[in-house]
């Protein structure tokens, strides 16, 4: 196994760009990532592109205007984990010696879907009886609040924290601070969620250039960020009782990433977790062992997961504020963490961060916690 480093990273400001094609959303980000790596485009031997809604040959369409074709392009889809899946395929190919330099791109343009709740799969029995993604997470939230005696106001604190971080990120879709009252007064979506409990839909792209250790040395990479471990799994199909406050796929993935990395929750200095909805961030604190079961709100209220705390979570604003163009998210988390580990995260810098964890999971599919989950640990 070769060590793999992130040599270049870039993303655009996430937001709503209905007038832009997927191609024009993506190529400036790829260009910036390659320039950030300081290598010639010709040195990139393959591209791994994650997208959920980008359509056929999304990688080829984005790379065409840059003349970066000829090489193998692998387009990966795994719903919210599409970008994370592309990253893992690229990491693996370099770690095993197939390439010494590869591009990872995560991209999606949700404004092309016509707005509203994302479409479900037509033959999904949960969808057929009226389930939506907000409703699914809302049920998790309701059950969690019931079991742990949590109020809607306490849950809303996740959103307030996300916006506090997002306000410091010039690439976030939302850059405004909000109050608990703002959250309570926003439009109802699915009880206990108002709109501010839910990530926005939008468009975005994020890209990384990965290199082998030898290549990193060859190009004189000044601030390498290393991939410590990379994990992907799919959700188990469960037909009976399942505890919706214990995210099956992430809990299992966490065990695997700790085993693979030889690390544990105490080793993590900063994390990006998949806060598609407020409740999700709390469930993932517990799934990763950042706190004990039932203690997530206490951890949040202690300030430990805010910037300046013991383990800042979602310093870039998370999905709630940075935005969640589905296939772009996994790559965007890794770009944010690359900047954090390089000390380039500006006002939202986590001082002295050495080890970072990225987690994205999603894809509503009846009988599964989620369709896919991707977890990565980086270090400097």
């Amino acid at each position, binding site marked *: 196994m070769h060590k793999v480093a992130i040599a270049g990273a870039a993303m655009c400001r996430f937001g709503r760009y209905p007038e832009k094609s997927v191609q024009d959303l993506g190529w400036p980000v790829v260009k910036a990532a390659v320039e950030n790596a300081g290598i010639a485009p010709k040195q990139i031997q393959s591209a791994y592109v994650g997208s959920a809604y980008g359509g056929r040959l999304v990688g080829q369409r984005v790379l065409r205007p840059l003349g970066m074709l000829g090489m193998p392009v692998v387009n990966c889809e795994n719903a919210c984990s599409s970008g994370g899946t592309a990253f893992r395929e690229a990491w693996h190919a370099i770690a095993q010696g197939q390439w010494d330099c590869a591009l990872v791109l995560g991209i999606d343009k949700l404004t092309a879907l016509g707005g509203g709740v994302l479409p*479900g799969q037509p033959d999904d029995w949960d969808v057929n009886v009226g389930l*939506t993604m907000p409703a699914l997470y809302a*049920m998790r939230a309701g*059950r969690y609040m019931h079991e742990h005696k949590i109020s809607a106001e306490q849950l809303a604190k996740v959103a307030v924290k996300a916006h506090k971080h997002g306000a410091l990120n010039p690439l976030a879709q939302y850059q405004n601070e909000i109050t608990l009252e703002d959250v309570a007064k926003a439009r109802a*979506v699915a009880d206990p969620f108002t709109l501010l409990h839910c990530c926005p839909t939008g468009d975005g792209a994020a890209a990384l250039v990965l290199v082998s250790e030898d290549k990193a040395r060859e190009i004189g990479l000044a601030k390498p960020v290393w991939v410590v471990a990379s994990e992907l799994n799919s959700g188990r199909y469960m037909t009976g009782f399942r505890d919706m406050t214990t995210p099956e796929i992430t809990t299992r993935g966490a065990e695997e990433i700790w085993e693979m990395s030889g690390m544990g929750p105490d080793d993590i200095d900063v994390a990006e977790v998949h806060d598609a909805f407020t409740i999700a961030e709390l469930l993932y604190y517990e799934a990763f062992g950042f706190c004990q079961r039932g203690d997530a709100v206490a951890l949040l209220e202690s300030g430990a997961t805010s910037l300046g705390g013991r383990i800042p979570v979602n310093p870039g604003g998370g999905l709630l504020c940075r935005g969640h163009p589905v296939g772009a998210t996994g790559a965007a988390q890794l770009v944010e963490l690359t900047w954090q580990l390089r000390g380039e995260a500006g006002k939202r810098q986590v001082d002295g961060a050495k080890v970072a964890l990225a987690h994205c999971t999603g894809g509503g599919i009846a009988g599964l916690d989620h369709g896919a989950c991707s977890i990565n640990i980086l270090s400097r």
Partner: protein
Amino acid sequence: MPDARKTADEFAEVWTVPGAVMTLANGEQRLRGGKCQGCGAEIFPKPKVCLSCWSEDIADDPLPTRGKLYAFTVVHVARKGWRTPYVIAYVDLENGVRVSAPLACDPKAVPAYDSAVRLKVGEIGRTDDGRPIMSHQFEQA
């Protein structure tokens, strides 16, 4: 895909989950689960293959009508075509099978977590062209 069938009223009903409801000889309406003849697993909706032993010999399995309300939410923003608010829930039946379904109740007075609910089959709304949308659903027991 709605399981469209002609009724006496000459309009076709639309079912949320086609084939999810079966009518017993005594006229009782039950959820149609599948019971694997290979390993005994009970699964809803009735599958064509058993996820445990891969047997394709799956018999109709009229599921219990009673269960416990595990989780629910009142949906205010839905996909196109759904009238809001409505309540959706996960119910654990007495035999351990979990079912997602509409919960027939006032959205302002949803039954308590873990309370007893019972199966009900009927209309949950109308399509734009006036056809009834039929569904298995639960109500307070």
